[in-house]
């Protein structure tokens, strides 16, 4: 694992989280 696999869509992340019994880290950021 060389980096975090960031996702951009919360809904698909929720589906994955339910399947894998995991929590979600939601990072609000500003690229500037």
């Amino acid at each position: 694992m060389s980096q975090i696999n960031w996702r951009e869509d919360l809904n698909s992340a929720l589906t994955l989280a339910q399947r894998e019994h995991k929590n979600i880290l939601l990072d609000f950021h500003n690229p500037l």
Partner: protein
Amino acid sequence: MDAVSYPNPKVIEFVENNLIAVKVLIDSQPLPKKFRVQWTPTLVLLDAEGEEHNRTVGFLPPEELLPSLLLGIGKSHFDHDEFDKAENTFQRLLVEYPKSDSSAEAAYYLGVSRYKRTHSAEELKKTIQHLKRDFPQSEWAKRASVYQML
């Protein structure tokens, strides 16, 4: 966070093994408004139903980010009445990061989780003893101080 904490190997391993990571631009609606986020970085820990269980605002170095994430996972278990899993998570935080900024809160929730599981007031008395010994200046020692009267 992108320059320091997220490239850290321990952070990468923890996040990939324990969480689904989602990045949201602060100026991309509707999520910032839905979660009432005004400043970055804001990290929100959700369960798989999308309910919030913990959040932090501002930069966290790896040695504070990791216990903060453990705290959020533990609080998610606690909020779902999964007290044994919550205890294990808070205990792991205290063993691996005994001096972090999240540790006093973890000690508080560890004791409360044990009380919720056992219904023994002794667990609350142990909690204030733990906090007075290891985190006497913390806000969590104050919050638990009422248990001295049990």
